[in-house]
Every structure is written in C-alpha cells, then in structure tokens.
C-alpha cells in the first residue's frame, strides 16, 4: 500500500534535507571524530623517535593499566573534581546574585553590566600575570592591604591548600562574568507580567525568587552550569601561570598532568591515554548531570 500523497511529500522533503545536509554532517563528523580516533590509536602505542623518524610500538591497554598508579593522575583527578565543584558553585551563586541585582535596577544598568563583564574580556595570560603580581608575598597589593590594617600577609601561592584556594579565587573572578551574562540574558527574557502577578498575589521577594524566577530560569541555569562544568574540568591556564601544579601536588589538575606527560616528558602514547580517560570521565559527568536535571525538570 502506498503512503498518502501528503505523507509521501513529507518523507521526500525529509530525505532531501538528509541528503543535502549529509556532506556537511560528514565533514563535521570527520573533523570532530578524527582527532578522537587518532587519540585512541595513539593511546595504544608507545611512540619513540629514532633516526629522525617516529617508531610506533603497539602496547594495547598497557598505558591504561598504568594510570591508577600514576601519582599525578590521581592528584589531578581529585583536585580537578574539587576545583570544578567549588569554583562552579561559587560562580553560579555570585553570577546569579549579580544578574538579579542588575536586572532589578534601572539607573546605571549599562555601567554595572560593563563593569561586571570586564574580567572575561582579559586574556588568560594577562590574568595570570595580574594575579601573580597581586599574590606576591613581598610586594603584592593584597599583602600590602593586609599590612595597612596591621595584619600579616600570606604566601598565597606558596602553601598547599591556600594555593589551591587562591587559584579557585582567580577562576571565580575570571568566569563569574560569563555566568552573569548568560543568567542576565535569561532573566531579561522572562515575561514581566508573571512578576507583576506574583506581586499582586502578595508574594514576598524570596517567595517570588523561589517559586517563580528560579523555576522559570531552570533551563538557562542548567545550560550555564553544564557549560561551566565542562570548562572548569579543562582548567589549565590559571594553574600553569600561577603555580605550575605545586607546591607538591596541591594544585595539580588533570589538564596540567596531560600537558606534563604529553609535552614536557614527550610521552605521547601515555599522555593520549590520560586524555581519553579525561574525555570519558567528563562525558560521563555531563551525561549523568543532564539526565538528572532533565528528570528534575519533567517532575517540576
């Protein structure tokens, strides 16, 4: 039996769309997947250079079995997870508060928005230089301010947990504007009449925030959170510029471990294996997170 004419037309249009998009899809898949396939292949090899040529030796899963014993991988994974949780939580809270504040004021909104956005416009390398100088225990401005009020300064990047927290502070300073920008756009797109209706119903500001604004903002919050989680798991430049992973392994993060193993030590196969695991962990985190939030939104 043949499909009715309208349905047949729709199928034909769908096919047409598929075929016309296919070349672009093929190029995209090639560009997106080829580096990952290459990474996986490299991770199963030892690559050494002799007589000016690369010698690839197949080692199978050997690199993967070494990973759990690698002290830098262990420290990197633990620190990256903690870093992402602390930094992203703080950025989301501060960014949302700033966005709420700016969305509610009338006078000076453009000025505030511009000021709050400034850190994200500064290149990472400059941020590293600025904060390295500010954190300097001898002549950094932070210790000088402490000195003005009679307090002893700290070696902000010199000792374990303090160095870790100092790097998180820089990340918060750097990335909160991004969260602020996305959430502000979300807040400004909410229909005004719902706020007015809530006010007429006698809802307090807290009730309006909890029962109206946050539920309506949930899709934007989730996307922002997911985006920040992904980026914070890949943190590199702040650690590279401020602490180099030290003291000890206090600020070692996974990206920096990959850099060290892959580039500094020239272990391309092993470095690729760490990258594949990082990719897998990150994908897993994002899939679980998205699944949980989707279920939550459906429930709501």
């Amino acid at each position, binding site marked *: 039996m043949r499909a009715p004419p309208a349905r047949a037309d729709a199928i034909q249009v769908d096919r047409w769309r598929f075929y016309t998009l296919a070349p672009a899809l093929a190029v995209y898949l090639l560009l997106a997947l080829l580096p990952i396939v290459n990474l996986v292949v490299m991770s199963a090899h030892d690559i050494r*250079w002799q007589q000016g040529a690369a010698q690839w030796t197949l080692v199978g899963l050997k690199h993967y079995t070494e990973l759990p014993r690698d002290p830098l991988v262990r420290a990197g994974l633990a620190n990256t997870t903690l870093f992402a949780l602390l930094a992203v939580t703080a950025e989301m809270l501060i960014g949302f508060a700033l966005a709420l504040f700016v969305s509610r004021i009338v006078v000076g909104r453009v000025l505030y928005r511009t000021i709050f956005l400034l850190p994200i416009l500064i290149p990472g390398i400059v941020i590293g230089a600025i904060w390295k100088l500010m954190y300097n225990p001898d002549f950094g401005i932070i210790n000088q301010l402490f000195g003005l009020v009679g307090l002893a300064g700290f070696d902000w990047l*010199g000792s374990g947990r303090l160095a870790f927290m100092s790097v998180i502070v820089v990340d918060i300073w750097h990335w909160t504007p991004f969260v602020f920008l996305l959430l502000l756009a979300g807040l400004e797109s909410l229909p005004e009449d719902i706020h007015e209706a809530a006010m007429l119903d006698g809802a307090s500001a807290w009730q309006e925030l909890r029962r109206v604004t946050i539920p309506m903002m949930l899709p934007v919050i989730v996307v922002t959170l997911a985006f920040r989680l992904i980026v914070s798991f890949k943190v590199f430049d702040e650690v590279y510029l401020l602490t180099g992973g030290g*003291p000890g392994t206090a600020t070692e993060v996974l990206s920096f471990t990959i850099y060290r193993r892959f580039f500094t030590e020239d*272990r391309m196969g092993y470095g690729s294996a760490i990258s594949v695991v990082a990719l897998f962990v990150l994908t897993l985190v994002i899939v679980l997170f998205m699944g949980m939030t989707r279920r939550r939104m459906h429930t709501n």
Partner: protein
Amino acid sequence: MIFNRGAFVHSLLRPFIALAALVVTTAMATWGGAAFAQAGAPWPKVSPITIVINQSPWFGGFSKVVEAYEKETGNKVTLDVNPFAGSGEKQRNSVRAKEGQFDILVMNSAWLAEFYHGGFLTPLNTIDASFRLDPQVMSYDDTGYWDATKKSNNAKTGVVYGVPINGNIQVLYYRSDLYEKAGLKVPQTWDELAANAKALNSPPNVYGMVQRGARSASDISYDWMPYLHSYNGAIFRDEKAGDFTVTINSPEARQALDMYVNLAKNSGPPNPGSYGQAQVIQALLTGKAAHATPVIAAWPQLDDATKSAVVGKVNVAVLPHGPGGRTTPTLGHFIGGIPNNIPKDRQVAALAFLRWFQSYDAQVKYAQTGQPPIRIDVYDAPFMKSPDYRWSRAILASLPNAKMMYTVPEGPQIASVLELRLNQAVLGEKTTADALNTAADEIHDIMQKAGYKTARLPALK
C-alpha cells in the same frame, strides 16, 4: 680574413678562465669563512636564518651579539624567542616536520639527549668538512659531540654536532657586604655554608639561604644536583659506562637531601617549596637573600642599578661541596645545533653564524654583556680583570667539574619524578628517606620500561 692566433687562443680559453674564476669565488664564499675571519676579511654573504631560543636571563647578551653579527657580516638573523619550555616544544615540532622552521636550535642540556638520540641533528662536518670546534672553546662535558654508535657524548669517538651558546652553571652568590660585617669566610663545604647562612638569617628582611625548591619542569632537581654529586652520590651508578642501576636512594644521596632540606628549614624563607628561579633571583636583587645558587646568567642584573638593590654588594664563589667530595655544578648550558630537515643553503648560513659565534672577537663581545664566554682565552683578556667581571674566576674554576644532570632521552621523565619527590621532602610531606625511596622506585620503573639494564638499591630505613 686575417687569422689572429693570440685572439683565437684567448677566446678559446676565456670560458675556462671564467669557469675557474667562478669556482674559486664560490669556494671562497662557501668554505672560506674561517680563513676570511682569521685574515680579518669580510664574512661571506649567506641566506637569512632563524634561531629558536628561550627568554632566559642571558638572552639579552646573546641578542646583542646577534646584532653585532648582522652589522659585521650584513647577514640577516631572525630570533624566535619563547619561554623556556615553549622553546623546547617548538624545536621538537620543527625537527619532526618534513621541513624544519628553524635553522639553529638553541638546545638546553635538559633536552639535548632527546635531540641526539632522536637523530634530528646534522653533523657540522657534513655541511663543511673543514669545520672544527675551536680548541679554545670549553668542552662542557663533551656535549657538542655525539657518538651515534655508543649513544654518548664523547669528543674522542664522536663527531661535532653543536657549538656551545651559553655556559650556564650554578655558582654560589653571597652578600659580600654582610660577610664583611659579620667577619665570615667564603664557605668551602655545605656545612660551612649552613653555618654562615644561619649566622646571616634575619627574617623577614634577609633569609640565610634561598633555594629553588619549587616543582616545575626543572627547578628543585637542578638545584639539588650539586649537593648530590658533591656528596659523591648520583642518579645512576655509572651512566657513561651503561650501568643504569638507580642509586638515588644511596646513603650519600640521603645526606645530600638532608643538607638541602635543613638549609631550607633553618635559614630559608617560609615556603621554600614555592621558590622557582625567578623568585630566587628576585630575592637576590631585593637584598632578601644572603646566599643562593642560581646560574651565572643571573649575574648582570645584580650589578645593574636599575634592577638591583644590592649593586656591588654581591660576590660569587665556586659551589661548596660535601665531605670528601668536590664542587660539582650542574650544566644548565645551551648548545647550538643545526637540524637535518632544512635546505643546504640554510645549513651553510647557520654554520656561518656558529663559526662566527665561536670566534674570539664575538666571545669578547658576549663577555662584555656580562655573560660567561664559551672560550677559555677570553677569560685572560685584560677587561676580565675588572671588578665588574668578578664572577669569572669562579666560573673558570667550576667548569672542569661541571656535570650533566642526565644524558638519556628519558631525562625529562626522571626530572619529573625528582621534582615531585624532592619538593615533597622540602614541604615536609615526605621524609628524605621516603622521598628518595619513592623516587628510586619510579626511576627504576622508567628505565626498565625503556629497556635499560637497571637495578635499584635496597630501600633506605
């Protein structure tokens, strides 16, 4: 027609005369660099070249010498300047490409082995058969030579692959004004240094000893090596003889690490485990360090009134040594090499620069920027007797004992292990015995996987 025999012979010979003239001119232009230079004649015109180099404290001096080369010869040199680690990575990428981007690689001792073992460099004699390292150029543990069969640096059995660019080694910097005031003597041993450092320790204004205790690609491991070697310890039992038994956890190594950690605890700044090279030099420049052992490349800033608060108040001496040992600085020098994968004309041009660079006149210019010359005879030049060059005697006395940190391509992996474990010892996260035992296990593992004949010592208690 009148036959003119003279004209006939002349016209017959003219092409041969022209050809002979062309051959002579080309030969002079191609091979005659040394002869020209020795005779004071102009240097040959060659293709423009690019040198890849790192932005180390000695770079300012090198760039001035490059300017002098361009002025003197009319040849063009482009400097590709990078942070230390970035320079190594750029060099690695360039030599692994089909055609290299750089004509001279300024290679640090830390990554020299990788380039030699990888077969990326051209023997300089294949570019010009007459090329030799000038006998006045210092040997730096034969690192300009490579024996591809024995896989070792050896001037007797190997061929010349590189010209030293900077003879960076560690020396002891000390505050001569404080020494005078306290009536102290320049230390010969680490114990004497520890006593002097304690005597001058007055935190937070002056720290008795400031060390490179940070963990990076090469900070604390490089800083600690002179302690290890001068206590008669070593990473391997006999690297040159091919015995890669790991000896980093020997009793001598433990004594060396105990000394290093005690110096940091008793006379160092509050967080010695976070001080890299830049922080150590900063401490010297601001007068906060009574002693430090950075490389000699840091020197020019100390007598520069625009950068230093201690002009004329710092002096240098050879590094102290352990009991029964001798002063053993670690080579942190740079070798200029020419890659295989560049066209012949650029190789010729690169060699012309290296040939010029090792000349006496060029090295005088280099020394006058405050950097250690690579030629021994320049140290005898009259200007080197001036107080401005008071570092030169210490360098000359130290260099014969200077050692490479490692000569295997797995060096960066070994350094990575040492950086972490030594840093943990300084931070107090591990005891010295535990740090060295762990390092020994990890280095043994690296060497075993790479296929070396290796073993390890029993664990320290």
